């Protein structure tokens, strides 16, 4: 036994591998826990905004509600429609949920607290988020139901459309930062006027992530009044739970992305040195919570968009604007010799 | 890191291309802002832009300059060919404006696409590396695919576009494959590096078969583009299916650019492989001349007929390349110039063929033209005589110079083949004259005045008739252009 622990295999592969698995496990655990309590928070916040109480019965203040929900979903029977394309039908929710998790590999939650500190972290995040659409299309198609298919089509075109302006927003941030590494993005020295220039892009980004995660007011893919649940109409029990988890995990992921790109990650807000004694991770979590609150707040406030309005906003407003803003920012940075 | 400082003076040799590209984009925006179509305005402005680009090319220095890190080469040869291309594009737009309105396909994108195709052709002609060759070729081809299918409600036009696209994509694939083989051998894509490496290898007699096969793949791809037999299958269908104005464009311009590109490739990077490519081009040339002559005989559709005519004519143009001398290249350039001008005139007549407001395109529809439209009939006669190479019209001199160059290089078999095919082809050109003068018309063609089209037609007739008076000017220019390409043989 002693021999094994001293062997090259253990020091080179075994131990680092175990550490990595441990990190991944911890990350997944935290994210799943966060997802569970995000649903709770959403119901509580919505309740407060609508002057009701939200979940109250299970546990103190209803705190055990998410666990009860989870147990209920797990113990139900999974129904697969007889005409469905079975492998794809099952693969779709798994893929959606997996994608929402793997993206966390590159998210730095504090200085150098990251599973994989890769050079092209921003592109990795963008690549993963652009793949999310497959889970939905596959689900819609494999269900072999017109509601599901319509919902999937809506969702796919919506996500593809808003990805374009999201990409341009990211490009603008990169212009100001000069690196694709997420730690560098946070640590980059951004003067005040650069932050101001990025402000309109923050607005575009916040709206785009609502569309990207199919959240209200852009939740047409689920549009229960006309599509009775959209692409997930045929899903039940465990598979449904995976979609649900995936959607909320995506929300948290997008909030983390916003935090890193615009809100300064784990750094204290507004660069106030006096607040630096608080650990970075706390700031990071608080900022994510702020963005998540924005998600829920929007849901409580705005009515659902009509489909053509949604497309118009994406292609005719955000795309030209963000394209223009990329040019403006690049021009300003070049003129004042502020390119990193 | 070495951040190369951008030098604006680099743009000067590429000024015509840059100007044309920018004006295409400006016209696109302008067209999109116009309320109803705006074809007339955009068309006129496109002609103006082409004319300005032509002036810029004329003003350009004819001494060779390479810019953009050796990707782009501007010299006498490229400038000459670019002027031809630009002239051809101007003629096409002028010919087709009326037709576009009549056929109800007056979209402002049409001239814009022509401009962009022109940019592509000019980049092809100025290519000094396989990369710029490829992007130029794709820019040109993509615009032409769209133009072929532009009448999207018409099954034939869509079919033409699709066929052209699929076969063109295949040709592009072959081109890339060939380029990658050559790159694999040489390790660079610049023409200069390829030429040096191949010359050194030829001197030692160690050229790898991989490089030669790569070159053959590239040749095949270009043969597709110039529609040389046996890579011509798309031509008749595309010519017939595409709207006549687009057919005119296809017949007049892209082949000039593609032949220019072929010459550049064969006499610049691949010049040391001349014995190898001469066999290939010999075959392409002989097969094109023969097939263009014989298959044309049975055609009833005039657009199809001119597809075969263009195949045959490409064969004659290739003859000059087979010769492998500066004279041969000069002859080939001159041949393409004359062919282009004759074709412009001919399509002026073909686009006039309408009966009761509907375009007709059978040869028999020309019957009795001498009675109803005598001026047109005589113009067509002159053009057909010139096409079949009857002295003293310009077409005769074109054929004369290529065969002179060929015989000077000692390719007697090809010369005889060429003469025979030329006689066969003369049959169908003369048949058109016979139909016009000796057949009875069932119903007369429409009478209409299209001043632009008449202008192009008149210029074309003046050229083919007047060439005999001052043949030296053009011949000298073409020889100068060829001398740039083949300085050693001069």
């Amino acid at each position, binding site marked *: 036994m002693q021999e094994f622990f001293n062997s090259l295999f253990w020091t080179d592969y075994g131990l680092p591998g175990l550490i990595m698995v441990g990190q991944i496990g911890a990350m997944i655990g935290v994210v799943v826990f966060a997802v569970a309590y995000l649903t709770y928070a959403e119901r509580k916040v919505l309740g407060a905004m609508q002057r009701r109480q939200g979940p109250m019965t299970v546990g103190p203040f209803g705190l055990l509600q998410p666990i009860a929900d989870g147990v209920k979903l797990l113990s139900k029977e999974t129904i697969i429609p007889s005409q469905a394309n079975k492998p794809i039908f099952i693969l779709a929710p798994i893929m959606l949920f997996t994608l929402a998790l793997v993206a966390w590999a590159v998210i730095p939650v504090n200085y150098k607290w990251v599973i994989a500190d890769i050079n092209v972290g921003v592109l990795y995040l963008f690549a993963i988020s652009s793949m999310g659409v497959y889970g939905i299309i596959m689900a819609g198609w494999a269900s072999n139901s017109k509601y599901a298919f319509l919902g999937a089509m809506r969702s796919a075109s919506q996500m593809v459309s808003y990805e374009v302006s999201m990409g341009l927003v990211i490009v603008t941030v990169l212009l100001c930062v000069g690196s694709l590494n997420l730690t560098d993005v946070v640590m980059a020295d951004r003067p005040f006027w650069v932050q101001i220039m990025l402000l309109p892009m923050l607005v575009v980004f916040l709206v785009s992530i609502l569309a990207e995660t199919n959240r209200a007011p852009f939740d047409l893919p689920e549009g229960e009044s006309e599509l009775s649940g959209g692409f997930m109409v045929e899903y039940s029990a465990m598979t449904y739970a995976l979609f649900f988890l995936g959607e909320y995990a995506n929300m948290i992921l997008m909030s983390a992305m916003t935090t890193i790109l615009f809100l300064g990650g784990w750094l204290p807000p507004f660069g106030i040195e006096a607040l630096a004694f608080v650990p970075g991770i706390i700031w990071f979590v608080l900022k994510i919570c702020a963005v998540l609150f924005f998600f829920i707040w929007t849901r409580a406030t705005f009515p659902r968009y009509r489909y053509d309005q949604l497309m118009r906003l994406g292609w005719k407003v955000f795309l030209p604007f963000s394209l223009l803003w990329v040019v403006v920012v690049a021009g300003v940075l070049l003129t004042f010799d502020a390119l990193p | 890191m070495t951040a190369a400082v951008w030098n604006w003076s680099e743009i000067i040799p590429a000024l015509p291309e840059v100007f044309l590209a920018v004006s295409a984009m400006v016209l696109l925006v302008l067209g999109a802002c116009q309320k109803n179509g705006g074809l007339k305005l955009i068309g006129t402005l496109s002609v103006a832009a082409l004319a300005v680009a032509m002036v810029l090319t004329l003003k350009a220095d004819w001494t060779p300059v390479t810019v953009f*890190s050796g990707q782009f080469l501007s010299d006498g040869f490229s400038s000459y060919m670019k002027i031809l291309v630009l002239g051809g594009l101007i003629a096409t737009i002028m010919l087709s404006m009326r037709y576009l309105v009549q056929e109800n396909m007056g979209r402002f994108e049409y001239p814009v*696409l022509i401009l962009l195709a022109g940019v592509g052709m000019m980049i092809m002609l100025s290519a000094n590396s396989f990369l710029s060759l490829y992007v130029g070729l794709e820019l040109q081809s993509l615009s032409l695919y769209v133009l072929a299918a532009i009448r999207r409600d018409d099954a034939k036009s869509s079919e033409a576009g699709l066929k052209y696209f699929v076969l063109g994509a295949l040709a592009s694939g072959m081109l890339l494959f060939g380029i990658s083989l050559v790159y694999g051998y040489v390790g660079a894509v610049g023409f200069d590096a390829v030429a040096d490496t191949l010359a050194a290898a030829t001197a030692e007699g160690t050229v790898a078969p991989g490089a030669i096969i790569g070159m053959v793949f590239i040749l095949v791809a270009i043969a597709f583009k110039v529609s040389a037999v046996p890579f011509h299958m798309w031509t008749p269908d595309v010519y017939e299916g595409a709207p006549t104005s687009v057919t005119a464009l296809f017949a007049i311009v892209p082949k000039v650019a593609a032949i220019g590109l072929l010459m550049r490739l064969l006499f610049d990077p691949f010049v040391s492989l001349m014995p190898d490519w001469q066999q290939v081009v010999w075959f392409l040339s002989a097969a094109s001349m023969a097939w263009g002559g014989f298959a044309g005989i049975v055609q009833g559709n005039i657009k199809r007929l001119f597809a075969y005519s263009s195949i045959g004519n490409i064969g004659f143009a290739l003859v000059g390349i087979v010769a492998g001398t500066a004279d041969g290249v000069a002859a080939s350039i001159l041949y393409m110039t004359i062919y282009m001008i004759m074709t412009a005139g001919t399509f002026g007549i073909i686009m006039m063929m309408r009966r009761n407001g509907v375009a007709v395109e059978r040869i028999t529809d020309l019957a009795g033209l001498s009675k109803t439209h005598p001026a047109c009939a005589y113009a067509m006669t002159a053009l057909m005589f010139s096409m079949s190479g009857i002295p003293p019209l310009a077409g005769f001199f074109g054929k004369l110079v290529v065969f002179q160059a060929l015989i000077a290089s000692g390719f007697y078999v090809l010369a005889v083949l060429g003469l025979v095919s030329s006689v066969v082809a003369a049959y169908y050109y003369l048949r058109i004259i016979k139909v016009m003068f000796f057949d009875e018309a069932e119903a007369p063609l429409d009478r209409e005045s299209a001043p632009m089209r008449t202008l192009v037609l008149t210029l074309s007739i003046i050229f083919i008739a007047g060439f005999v008076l001052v043949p030296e000017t053009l011949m000298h220019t073409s020889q100068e252009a060829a001398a740039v390409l083949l300085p050693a043989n001069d």
Partner: protein
Amino acid sequence: MLETIAFYLFATVLTLSALRVITARNPVHSVLFLILAFFNAAGLFVLLGAEFVAMILVIVYVGAVAVLFLFVVMMLDINFVEMRKGATRYMPLGVLLGGVLLTELTMLFGAWKFSPQIAQNAASPTPAIDSVENTHAIGAILYTDYVFIFQVSGLVLLVAMIGAIVLTHRVRAGVRHQKVSDQVNRKISDSMDIQSIKPGSGA
């Protein structure tokens, strides 16, 4: 060793999924296998140290191009089995040509040699891979040495866009467009008239 394992894993899955792309009976499965193939190709690029190319491959091909493929095959409902029936007629010829080409290429591969000058020709203009990230290296030559090609590629894409619009966009008559500015500029007084009505008198 890990890299070798990863390479064989990616390469095997890539080859197998590429094979399934052309053998799968269901076109949707074909596209999904194509996506898997792209993904594994990206993995191979990562192993080569070309992480930028890998990410771009995923973003562009998986995230955009293949989505459109999937849209097309899902919406069109083409029966590929039916289409293949005609193809079997030309199968012998295709196999023959493919065989000839394969033999030629094998011979070519066997007799392959590089030019003696290749080392000098292929001397890379980029800085050494360990001194600068490859994303920076690509940027540094893409916008300097290859700026011409880059711009012309942009023009090619422009043409593709024009083509797509020309060939598909049609102006339909009788479509009622929403004018957002009109809606925004609408005042309450335009549509509503507040009247004070005395009790018992009626409107």
